[in-house]
């Protein structure tokens, strides 16, 4: 009885399982635990939805073009190439 109570009420554990599920997947037992919890807990269902949303956004953010207009200035580039040529000559 205690075990079931723990599953039903423990949102702290459920939210950890939600994270684990997205990264490494869950064991059979963990999966059942999370499913039971989510049936009864609308708050953690919202958490799960938002957790997935955040992960998706973060991935897109880093693979998107948010800094695609970022360019090094020409002066810096020119000096950098000169530095490289200098080093090449020494070898």
């Amino acid at each position, binding site marked *: 009885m205690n075990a079931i109570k723990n599953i039903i009420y423990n949102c702290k554990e459920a939210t950890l399982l939600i994270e684990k599920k997205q*990264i490494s997947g869950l064991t059979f037992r963990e999966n059942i635990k999370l499913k039971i919890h989510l049936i009864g807990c609308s708050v953690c269902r919202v958490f799960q939805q938002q*957790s997935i*949303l955040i992960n998706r956004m973060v991935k897109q953010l880093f693979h998107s073009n948010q*800094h695609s207009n970022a360019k090094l200035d020409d002066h810096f580039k020119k000096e950098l190439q000169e530095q490289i040529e200098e080093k090449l000559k020494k070898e």
Partner: protein
Amino acid sequence: MHMSSDSNTTGTLPGANTINPHQWVEMYADYLYTYALTRLNDEEQARDLVQETFLAALERIDKFEGKSSERTWLTAILKHKIIDIYRKKSSGFAKRTDIADAEQEQADFFDHDNGHWNAPYRPHLFGMEEKDPMANKEFISILQRCMQKLPSLWLAVFTMKHMEDESTDIICSELKVTPSNFWVIIHRAKINLRACLQKNWF
């Protein structure tokens, strides 16, 4: 320097990718700069890293095997430098104080006895869940600000996992965290980030 994975090199194979440092800046500087800037959010640091990457690459040019493209090779060098920065930022004194603060902040999120959400901290729908959140600039900028507020070790773990899709083993060994601590960090970082979004979005 952290390039141990390159140690078993065999020399350039015929017909493989070639390397031409005379064109590096023209071809890859902006790409590498963007790569670093996205991950560090610091223009000066990103610029320095591009420079360091080229110079480090010159030092080890004889190790270039031609198995990958020039760009992939340079990016791998840059990536190790970025991880070094994560590591430096997340070690030492700063690490302990910023983590303590963040832990304090979420100490009341769950009931201490049964682990249930405490009422003031319960997640509420953002109203963005069904839409394309990337279309909303304000939402993105709040997310970015919230990420910058994470303790540096948490941000490092979170970024390496979700951005680079790095394996958990590599993250643990690079950042010197135990596997169980890894899960604690992933969990806390997300709880913190989500709460920060909720607080600033409404």
